[in-house]
């Protein structure tokens, strides 16, 4: 069974540029999460979906970050105008049923904003 797939693996951009991250969750998993993991820190939840609905986006910097999951399968996280403070690894995870079920993480996209 394929795991969670993310692309690209790496992204380097200048401040003010836009970037999108793509995630393909495990087939059949209805819940999808986006986490931000700064260097030497634990993952911090940005947003999560149940099917195509946003359940919690309270920690998403809404002025520059957006996330969609239009068909309840793949998802895209976009940063409109990146800042140096956005430098981090962006992890996508999926689970079946949400709640306290196991999260399965992708390998992440490592973003550097210069």
């Amino acid at each position, binding site marked *: 069974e394929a795991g*969670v797939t993310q692309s690209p693996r790496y992204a380097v951009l200048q401040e003010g540029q836009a970037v999108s991250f793509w995630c393909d969750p495990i087939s059949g998993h209805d819940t999808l999460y986006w986490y931000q993991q700064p260097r*030497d*820190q*634990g993952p*911090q*939840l940005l947003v999560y979906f149940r099917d195509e609905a946003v359940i*919690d986006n309270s920690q998403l910097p809404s002025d520059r970050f957006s996330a969609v999951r239009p068909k309840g399968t793949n998802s895209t996280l976009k940063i409109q105008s990146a800042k140096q403070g956005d430098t981090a690894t962006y992890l996508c995870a999926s689970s079946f049923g949400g*709640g306290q079920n*196991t999260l399965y*993480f992708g390998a992440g996209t490592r973003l550097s904003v210069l």
Partner: protein
Amino acid sequence: QQQVRQSSQSLTVWEGETAILNCSYENSAFDYFPWYQQFPGEGPALLIAIRSVSDKKEDGRFTIFFNKREKNLSLHIKDSQPGDSATYFCAASDSSGSWQLIFGSGTQLTVMP
């Protein structure tokens, strides 16, 4: 306020020793505590988890000891191997609240051969 705290940023042990990784938490409503293992260049993966109704959970060489009164827990890795070298994250969630998994900042374990 850091809700889940891992006291050591790094830990080095020799092959064959027992590595002990500590974790504490603030929210007494937390009732589920997974430990995730992360290798460089990979995402975290669930290693072992415990619910607050238990005080011990064992899976092979990995054991969680949980102290609800003191709001702390520890992960013991018996007979540590170089392949166990990774970063270990303690996490917690509350089934009566948002269910959101809160991660600690991680402990980087190095097992020397």
